[in-house]
């Protein structure tokens, strides 16, 4: 993995939100990650763990409080609005809800063409031709491209959104729960399409999802977040075979498997997610961890990689 070219490197990203009064919500607190070219990095965690905030921060849709983001060696922090806008040709985003991410007053063709218009790529005819090709690639017929979003179902809309994200030939797409709003049978269509795009066009994904079985299906590597911290990062197979962090273990064992014969040994997780406004001292997971020691309550564990690139933030591993 390490010999592949690094596409995006995020170092010590912090994103704090100002809450009421003196409260500060530490949505993302010191997270570092690298993304290689053509790689799919899955990002999982429960709601409120900061995974979406991290995704948006990487594209500078949210301004990070601290940290640097290197894209092909160039730091994105400090770029002017204009420069950033040009960079965004290379980095796109797919949102969770396909119903609210398309302009209802634009036809499919117009929506997909918008990035080309904005970045002034090609002549009018070339743009049209390119859009038509792209829509065909994601599975639309010629006669459908002048229709409006309301005429399409959720799965079709999500494919339009994917076409729009792809049209400016990006190297990197942040997918924030792209299939969570879709039904099972339609979800498979979209997942297969996304996988094909990754294989055929070499687009790297940051694939954010709370659904571990979906993440497993698409990802090369997986990062697990808990309360604004990254707790574990490993190659997909390795993570599922050998989860090291107690949180990852609990998370993996909570997933119901669609087979009545498979009985899972549950590692039950007690209690609820603490408030990110007032996260626990030391290791943030210690309030729910059954292995927690005195050290965990006081000292925050460092995120360390072993020789195989399996990283974990836990005193006991």
């Amino acid at each position, binding site marked *: 993995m390490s010999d592949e070219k690094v596409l995006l490197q995020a170092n010590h990203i912090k994103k704090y939100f100002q809450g009421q009064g003196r409260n500060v919500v530490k949505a993302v607190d010191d997270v570092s990650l690298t993304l290689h070219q053509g790689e799919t990095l899955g990002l999982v965690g429960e709601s409120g763990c900061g995974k979406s905030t991290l995704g948006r921060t990487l594209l500078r849709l949210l301004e990070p409080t601290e940290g640097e983001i290197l894209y092909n060696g160039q730091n994105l922090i400090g770029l002017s609005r204009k420069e950033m806008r040009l960079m965004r040709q290379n980095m796109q985003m797919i949102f969770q809800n396909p119903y609210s991410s398309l302009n209802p007053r634009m036809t499919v063709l117009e929506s997909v063409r918008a990035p080309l218009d904005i970045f002034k790529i090609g002549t009018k005819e070339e743009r049209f031709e390119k859009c038509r090709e792209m829509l065909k690639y994601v599975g639309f017929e010629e006669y459908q491209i002048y229709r409006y979003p309301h005429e399409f179902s959720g799965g079709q809309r999500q494919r339009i959104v994917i076409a729009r994200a792809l049209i400016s030939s990006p190297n990197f797409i942040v997918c924030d729960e792209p299939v969570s709003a879709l*039904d*099972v049978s339609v979800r498979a269509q979209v997942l*297969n399409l996304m996988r094909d795009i990754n294989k055929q066009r070499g687009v790297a994904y940051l694939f954010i999802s709370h659904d571990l*079985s979906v993440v497993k299906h698409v990802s090369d590597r997986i990062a697990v977040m808990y309360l604004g911290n990254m707790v574990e990062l490993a190659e997909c197979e390795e993570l*599922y075979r050998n989860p090291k962090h107690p949180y990852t273990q609990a998370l993996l064992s909570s997933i*119901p*498997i*669609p087979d*009545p014969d498979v009985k899972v040994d549950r590692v*039950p997780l007690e209690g609820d997610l603490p408030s990110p406004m007032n996260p626990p001292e030391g290791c943030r997971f210690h309030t729910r961890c059954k292995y927690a020691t005195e050290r965990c309550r006081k000292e925050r564990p460092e995120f360390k990689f072993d020789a195989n690139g399996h990283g974990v933030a836990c005193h006991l591993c």
Partner: protein
Amino acid sequence: MEDTVLLKVDHLRTFFKTKTGVLPAVNGVSFTLKSGEILGVVGESGCGKSVMSMSILKLIEKYGGKVQEGSSIELQGRQVLGLSEKVMCNLRGKEIAMISQDPMTSLNPVFTVEYQMVEMICRHTEMTKKEASAHALFWLKKVGIPEPEKRLKEYPHQLSGGMCQRVIIAMALSCDPKVLIADEPTTALDVTVQAQILDLLRKLRDDVNAAIILVTHDMGVVASMADNIMVMYAGRAVECGTTHQIFKAPKHPYTQGLLASVPRMDKQEDKLYAIPGNVPNLTQKIEGCVFRERCDQCVGKCAKEAPPQFLLDGGQKVRCWLYEQEAKEICDE
């Protein structure tokens, strides 16, 4: 006690009148529920699974739906459909309770947990307020809420999603209902919390021997919970059987496709099976089988005539022409 039939639904049809025509949301669904049984109802959005549960509670009229004549819903041998709203109010919560999908919006935000629970308990039992309050506390303990005394005095916004769902479950069970309808009880929750809630439901089923209708779109959830499963598609029950039958020997092409399109945690597959196309628009009358346009095992007869429900060996029921030959009999229509 084992085999008492608690709920018998027969040819339930519920329709909505819309601008574009009549929409048959539930189109002839029949099933029985025995005490202590968990029936899993699976299907995609729009297949009519929620409308079905609302119809059983006779709440669907509030949403503009109508249950067609000829349908029958028997709760412990008593026909529910003809009952007045007043009688229904006594039944709901006492005999048959419901847990809805979104825990955060199912509780009234301006009243404390205690107020809401006591109101319900007093409505259905002879208890005084004080007794009811103690009873509420008992149930909060039972569903595993930490510091129940404190939580009782709190407002819903002070509780997390998982906690709210526990309160709702406690509330639903506090009057010992015979039948519990859980409509996507864990969809809005995180996986670790989902696991807690499912464990809780399983435990309660064993404790109070209530029958549960578990409505969900998650195949993983039903596999670990249900005894029997009904698969719905476009308002029809396309396949019914035991959990083992449905997962190990699915008959209907839709069930097969549904199972194949779920990414598996315990297996590595390269490409997921995708059922082509989309769910049909129900306001347009569909000739023949509803699943025909997305089915890859279509035969000539599928386009002409809607398949009846065939009863196969082992009690599995399937609504598909492919099984006409091996079927023992036709169970309806």
